C-alpha cells in the first residue's frame, strides 16, 4: 500500500458508494459496489466519524491530537496510511 499525497488542506470525505454503522465504538462498512465488508477499530471509527462531511487532513489530525497521547509525526503517518487504504478500497474520496 503506498501512502497518497495529503496536504493539510486536503479534504477527505466518505464515498457515496458505501454504507456503514456503529459497532459499539467500532465501525462496520459495506462497499456498495463490491459487496465487501470492512471493520474499523475505535481509532479508525473515530476518523470515520470525522469524515462524515468533508474534513481537512489538518482538522482530523488536530481532533485526534486532542484525544490521544501520541507524537504528531507518528499520528500523521498512521492517518495517511489509513486514508490511503480507504481510498484504495473505494470507501473515501479526497479533494486537494
Amino acid at each position, binding site marked *: 500500500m503506498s501512502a497518497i499525497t495529503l496536504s493539510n488542506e486536503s479534504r477527505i470525505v466518505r464515498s457515496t458508494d458505501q*454504507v456503514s454503522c*456503529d*459497532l*459499539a465504538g467500532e465501525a*462496520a462498512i*459495506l462497499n456498495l459496489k463490491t*459487496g465487501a465488508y470492512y471493520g474499523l477499530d475505535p481509532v479508525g471509527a473515530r476518523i470515520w466519524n470525522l469524515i462524515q462531511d468533508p474534513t481537512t487532513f489538518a482538522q482530523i489530525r488536530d481532533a485526534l491530537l486532542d484525544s490521544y497521547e501520541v507524537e504528531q509525526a507518528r499520528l500523521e503517518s498512521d492517518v495517511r496510511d489509513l486514508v490511503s487504504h480507504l481510498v484504495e478500497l473505494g470507501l473515501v474520496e479526497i479533494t486537494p
Partner: protein
Amino acid sequence: MNREAQFLVAVVRRFLHSQAVPPDLTGLDWSVATGLASAHGVTPLVYRVLRTLPMPEQVAEELRAAVEAGARASLALSAALCGLAESFEQHAIRFVPFKGPLLSQQLYGDLAFRSPGDLDLLIAPRDVLRARDVLLADGYRLESPLHWPCDSAWLKSRECEMVLAAVPRSASIDLHWRILPAYFASPFDRLDVWDSLTRTRFAGRELPCLTPEHLLPMLCAHAAKHAYARLAWICDIARCLIALPDLSWSTVLSAAARAGTTRQLLVGLRVAENLLEAPIPPTLPQDGAVEPLVQLVRARILAGRSIRTPELELIPFCLRTFESRRHRVRYLLGHLAPSWAEYRALTLPPSLYWFYYLFRPLRLMTRTRLRRTQLVA
C-alpha cells in the same frame, strides 16, 4: 415477575436515559436474558449498555457476535434499499421506506441499533404492480403465495402487502400499499402520507421518509396491532419521543381524533412512559380504558411471556384498543377474510374467490380440532 424480563426492561431504560439506575446483574440466568433480548429485538441496545458493566466474558462474546451479525444484516438491507431506490427512481415509482434500517437511522442515528429482518416499503397502490415488475427484473422472486397466477391475485392480500426476496436470499422486501392493513383502524385511514413526505440523508443519498407526525402514529398503530409484544417496538416509540421532541402534537392528536383512534395513540405513549420512562406531553386526552391496557402490556412483558401473542389474547386486546363498534366490527371481519394460509392450501381462480370465505372457517375449525386431538393424545 420474571427476573430476566425485569432486567431487560431496566437495560433498555438505561440505554434511553444514561442517568437511569444501572441494571442489577446479580442472580441472572444469562442464557434466558440474552434469549429474551434477541426475541424482543433489543440485542444491539443491550450490548451497548452491558459492555460497560462486568458481565461474563462468554456472554459478552456471544452478544458481540450477535451484534456484528445484526450489523451485517442491516448493512445488507441498506445496500438493497439503495439499489431499490435507484431502480424505483429510474421508473418514477413513488416509495417510502417506513421501517427497517432507515427507521434505525431516523430514531437512533445509526443503522445498527435496530434488528430489522426486512425492508418495508410503502408504494402508491397504482404503482404496486410496476414496482413488482421492477423487483422481478432486478432478480427478486415472490415469497408470498398467490391464489392464482394473474395480476389481480397479486393485490389480494389481507395484509395489503406482497413479499419478495433477493436471489440468493439476502434481503426480503415487503411492498405495502397501505401502512396498516385495511381491517385495522388507524390515523392513516384519514391521512395521506404522500402529501407530506420529507427526505433524509441515507448512505450518501436522499431518501423519502415519513414526517415525525406520521412516524409516531405509525409506530403506535403497528405496535398495537401486535399487542406491544416486543420491547423493541416500545423502545422505538420512546426513542421517537426523545429524538423528535419538536413534533407537532396538535397535528398528531387531531389526526388521531379525526380517525377515532386516539386510544391507540394513548396506549402506545403510556406504555412507553410506563416501562421506559418516555417523555410524553403533560396534557393528553383522558380515556379510562387506556390504563388497564397499559397494565396488561406491562404484566405480559415483565412476565417474560412468549413474544408471539396467542390469537385468543391478541384479538380481545386489539378490540379493546378500538374506540368505536365500527372499528371493532371491521377488525373482526378482517379476520374472516382469506389469508396466505388459505392460498397455500387451495388454488382458486378469481371467479371462485368467494369460496375462500367458506374455506377459511372450515380450515380454522379443522386446525383447532386437530390441535385439541393432539393435546388430548
